[in-house]
């Protein structure tokens, strides 16, 4: 299975969170092909909202930065892991900045799905994903529910499913590896 991990940790990536993600990548590599992106070591610009990726160079973002390698990895993956410590109650602006650039992976045309309007697929396959967070001192269940629900909405638009949302304080690496690998078995069944 091809797995892409987007680590949106904005610290120097030597802290507990990034150590957890490094360990997770190492364990997953024992059975899978893993692409780990440390976003804070990459040049990722904000989406400018130009829509060139929709109406000028369909599917291709013209911003000259490192986002293309992430987009390529994501759309060719079987599974994606969005990883970030919570900051002000949501994933980091760095991870959000990268996710904003996903817009060109979809087509601008709209279809009716689940009784709502959503963008149609550009690619035949979109990877399901998991979310891994680190809590802030004041994180509560409501915060986690908000993040989970927003990612469920994202999944709906991204033609995918959110398979899990984990916090490093309550889920060890072994558990996340098991759930990610178990997903493979479900997908292959």
């Amino acid at each position: 299975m091809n797995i892409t991990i987007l680590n949106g940790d904005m610290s120097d990536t030597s802290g507990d969170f990034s150590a957890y993600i490094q360990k997770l990548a190492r364990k997953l590599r024992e059975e899978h092909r893993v692409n780990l992106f440390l976003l804070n070591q990459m040049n990722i610009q904000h989406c400018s909202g130009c829509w060139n990726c929709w109406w000028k160079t369909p599917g291709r973002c013209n911003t000259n930065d490192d986002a293309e390698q992430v987009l390529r990895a994501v759309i060719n993956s079987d599974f994606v892991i969005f990883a970030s410590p919570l900051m002000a109650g949501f994933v980091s602006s760095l991870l959000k900045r990268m996710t904003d650039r996903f817009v060109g992976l979809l087509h601008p045309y709209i279809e009716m799905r689940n009784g709502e309007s959503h963008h149609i697929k550009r690619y035949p396959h979109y990877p399901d994903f998991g979310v891994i967070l680190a809590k802030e001192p004041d994180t509560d269940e409501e915060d986690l529910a908000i993040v989970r629900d927003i990612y469920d909405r994202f999944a709906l638009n991204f033609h995918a499913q959110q398979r899990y949302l984990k916090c490093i304080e309550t889920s060890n690496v072994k558990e996340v590896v098991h759930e990610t690998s178990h997903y493979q078995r479900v997908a292959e069944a």
Partner: protein
Amino acid sequence: MKLAIINGSPRRKKSNSKILIERFLKGYYRECTDEVPVHYLAGQKRKEEALSLFEQAETVLVVFPLYTDCMPGMVKEFFEEVSKPGIIRPRRIGFIVQSGFPEAIHSVYVERYLAKFVKRLKREYLGTVIRGGVEGIQIMPPGMTRKLFSHFEELGRYFAEHDEFSPEIMEVLRKPYTLSGRRRMMFNLLKHTGLTNFYWNSHLKKNGAWEKRFDRPYENAQP
């Protein structure tokens, strides 16, 4: 400074958010002559200016487009900045979220986040105005935007008078929450005519990109 507005659209002065803010202020100035500064988050050094505004105003409204089901990355960056210790914060904070999707349902999830965010800052939450169907307003004939603009002007006028969003106008603006069965049926009938994609197709053709509209540039070649 009584009120300040922060425009969180990456498109800055070409944004639909700017148009809605202008309509809001047109109504606002009918009742109040206090100048309302508007700052953009996009662009060099803009964050510092917005931060300064945040520290000086009694009330701040943050206006942004929905990006991948949430706030744009640059708005989140701003939220992280103002969450840091030592930042002076306005007494009251409200939001206007606009999106290209016609239904409000797409934006109500980020609304929950915004309410919690203001609570975390220990400030008064003024609510979130949600409006869908905004993409394309810059090329729509005046007849198609008259009602929308009039609602935003009234929203601004009411805000100047009462220091809060009008609950009635907020309710009107967030309609439709979901599309009615009749509207969905109409969409499904019209999609075969190409009318539902007229906006996108006209841009694709103008840019000579029509033939490439289904390209998959990032797909790996199959072995």
